[in-house]
Every structure is written in C-alpha cells, then in structure tokens.
C-alpha cells in the first residue's frame, strides 16, 4: 500500500476508535438519566462558581483593584482545565482494560478520549460562565480575546501532556496514582490561580515561574484584564515545557502499551 493511503487509512481508524470511545465514555460516566452529558459542563461550573462565591465572601479584594469575580473565574477555570485532564487519566488504562482486547484500541486512545472530554467540559464551562457574567455586567469582556485563547490552548496542551504522563505512569505503578492526589492538591495554591505573580516578592516569583502552568494563567489574565494588571510570563518557556512533557508522555504511553497484559 502506498504510504499516503496507508496513513489515510490509519487516520480513518483513529477517528473511528476515538468516536466509539467518546460515545461510550459519555454514557458510562453520565448515563442517560437527568441532565446526562451536560454534567460534563455543569460540574466544573459548580466548582468555579463555588470558589468565586467563597473568594467574594472572604472579601479577597486587592489593592490592585482586580475584579474578584473575573479573577476567580479565570483562575479556577484554568486549574480545572489541566488538573482534571491529569486526574481523569490516572488509572484510565486499568479502568478500560477489557477494551484493549480490540486490536485497534490502544492505550493512547483511552487517554486521548478522557483528555478530549475534560478539555471540552472545562472550556465550555469557562466560556459559559464568562458569557453569563459579562451579560450580567459582573465581569467585563476580555481585552484581548486572541491572547486569552492562546493562554487557554497552551494550558490545555499542558493538561494533555501531563495526562499522558500520569495516565501511563499509573500503568507502571499504583504509587503514581497515590502521589498524584496530594501533588494536585498542593499544586493548586501555587499554580497562579489564586494570585498574580506580581504580588509576590521577587525571590518567590522566580520559584513560582518554574511551574509551567503559572505562565499560562498569567497569559490568560493579561489577555483578560490588559494593562490593569502587571503580568510575568514567558510563552516560550511554557511551549518548551509542554513539548518536553509531551515527548515524555508519548514515550511512556508507547512503553505502557507494550507492557500491558490483557487478562
């Protein structure tokens, strides 16, 4: 078979498998009762709304004059984006063991399915909340939509790459799962969601900016608030981190696929 036809055929199979897995995952997770697949969007929305309410009630107003609702929604939505990708991928292989009996269903397909769903849910939740609050005039529209999108896409990429590493990692050892939970919990307060890097003393800024997702959140907020805030980020650093993490993730996924013993 010529290389081009062979590639097209492989792509067609890939598309078919992802579609089959997505449909199956949606029904498995959300069922057909009550709101069904809408929970994919409602769940992160409830989280974000809760955090926004808590932060408002706590009077977390800053001298910077940052609008608290917009601050909470941009921050917590971006945490959910990368954290849910990784958390849902943890143990995904084990939970879908039986499916690997079908030759064309591979470890990467199982992980991609969960990544696609989480990114879609978090994105819809963010867009919906931002639209509603803007309509209510509790939040102003983003200053630079392109920059917001770029920050969001990079954060999604980071989440996907992290998901590959965590997902494949749990296939090696359950310890990865056990470590991921405290790690995810501890990463939240330092991930840039609850502060602006500019509020930190310079020494701490350096340390926090080692975390790739902090750059993404800063980018997102610069896009949203424009010159009202002073941001510190390096898009190049985030892209390189994502690339390296993706390479590591893909390598681990390939190796996990070879090691997996379908029983």
């Amino acid at each position, binding site marked *: 078979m010529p290389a081009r036809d062979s590639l097209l055929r492989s792509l067609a199979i890939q598309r078919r498998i992802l579609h089959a897995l997505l449909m*199956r995952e949606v*029904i498995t997770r959300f069922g057909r009762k009550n709101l069904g697949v809408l929970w994919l969007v409602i769940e992160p929305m409830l989280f974000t709304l809760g955090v926004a309410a808590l932060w408002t009630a706590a009077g977390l107003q800053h001298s910077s004059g940052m609008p608290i609702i917009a601050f909470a929604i941009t921050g917590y939505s971006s945490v959910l984006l990368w954290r849910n990708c990784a958390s849902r991928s943890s143990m995904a292989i084990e939970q879908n063991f039986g499916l690997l009996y079908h*030759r064309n269903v591979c470890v990467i397909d199982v992980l991609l399915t969960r990544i696609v769903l989480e990114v879609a849910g978090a994105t819809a939740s963010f867009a919906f909340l931002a639209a509603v609050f803007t309509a209510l005039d509790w939040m102003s529209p983003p200053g630079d939509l392109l920059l917001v999108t770029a920050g969001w896409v990079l954060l999604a990429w980071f989440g996907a790459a992290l998901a590959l590493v965590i997902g494949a990692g749990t296939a090696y050892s359950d310890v990865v799962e056990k470590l991921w939970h405290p790690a995810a919990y501890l990463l939240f307060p330092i991930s840039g969601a609850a502060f602006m890097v500019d509020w930190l003393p310079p020494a701490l800024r350096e340390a926090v900016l080692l975390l790739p997702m902090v750059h993404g959140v800063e980018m997102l907020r610069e896009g949203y608030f424009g010159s009202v805030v002073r941001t510190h980020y390096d898009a190049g650093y985030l892209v390189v981190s994502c690339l390296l993490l993706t390479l590591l993730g893909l390598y681990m996924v390939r190796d996990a696929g070879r090691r997996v*013993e379908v029983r």
Partner: protein
Amino acid sequence: MISVENVSKVYSTRKGPRKVLDGVSFRLERGRNLGILGKNGAGKSTLIRLISGAEQPTSGRIRREMSVSWPLAFGGAFQTNLTGLDNLKFVCRAYGVDYRPLVGFVEEFTELGVYFREPVSHYSHGMLTRLAFALSMAVEFDCFLIDEAMVVGDVRFHQRCHDELFHKRRDRAFVLVTHEAQVIKLYCERASVLHEGRLHAFPTVDEAYDFYQATLAESPAAVES
C-alpha cells in the same frame, strides 16, 4: 493469511521472568483452519491474544493479511453500566460497521428480551455469554479466533453457536484452541500441540492427538494458570 514467525512471550512474575511461548511459528491461509491442543496453562490463551493483536510478542513477528477477530465470545470488555445495545454500538463503531441492521440478529440470538436495553450488570452469566458470542458474530471477519471458553453454556446455545460459526461461516478461516481433543477432531482439518512453550505441528489430527495423549500421560495434573 496470518503468519506467526518465531514468536516468544515472556511474562514477569514474582519469581522472575517466565517464558510462556518459545519460538512459535505457523501460517494460516485464508479459508483454512487450525486446531491447537494444549493442557491448562500451556499458553493457549496467550497465543490467541497475541494473534488477535491485543498483546505484543516479546520477540518475533505476527503478520495479518486478513481481518482477524478479537478472541471469540470474550466478555471482559463489557462496561457493566452500559446496556447490551450500547455494547453492540461500541463494537460496531470501533470496527466501522453500521449497528442498525444488526440489532435484530443480536436481539434474537441472545434472547435477552427487555434486558437487551438494561445495564449489563443485571445480566446472568448465561446472558453475558450469549451477548458476547452475538457481538463476535456482528462483525464479519476473515478469520475467527476461538478460545475454548465458548464451549460453555447449555446444549441449545452450544448448537446455535455451532450453526453460526461452522455452518453459516464455514468459508472463513479460524484458529481454535482447546484442551479437549474431541473438539479439534470434530472441527479442524489440522492440529498442533502446544507443549512447554513450543508448538508441535503434525500432518494429521490423529498424530497430534497421539502426541497430546502422551504429554498428558507425562504429567496428568497440570496447574491452571
């Protein structure tokens, strides 16, 4: 054609690596069949999983130049909170087949009645077995991989499986693995014996049968893996 070339499979156990298959080779042409006899724990199911592509060999190569089924009547892929119909849809989508014309066949074959649209977690063992077999028949493969597991169930179900597989689809190739020599004699044109990781080929089913009997006499109490 399927060609299995010098395939070995090593599993890691707590007591170190264990070689389950050691340099296994054979070829199967389109429309032909092969029976593989082996004691419990001889590596028959491992070999089937490797041929199906669900697992990769540790060394050696497997080429598939016809469409090969997943191990037949395998029920492990059922998601328990999905219905029988959902499971049919998944299999059809994964293999690029329209499920709609197949609903009638699967409903009729499985005799699930209202349970066809109930979660699989409410099924009895017999119902699961019937669904698993019906799904295997939903996709038309050139070659079927049959593990002895399908020989479970009542006589009537057994007869219906037999009709679907060996009458309606007698033009297809298949590989049948079992520890029951009678089954091989009944269905296969040639047979090999899997013994201590190696595959011994014989020109006739009878010679394979004699060799198999000899290996059984050697160590009658094989350990179930």
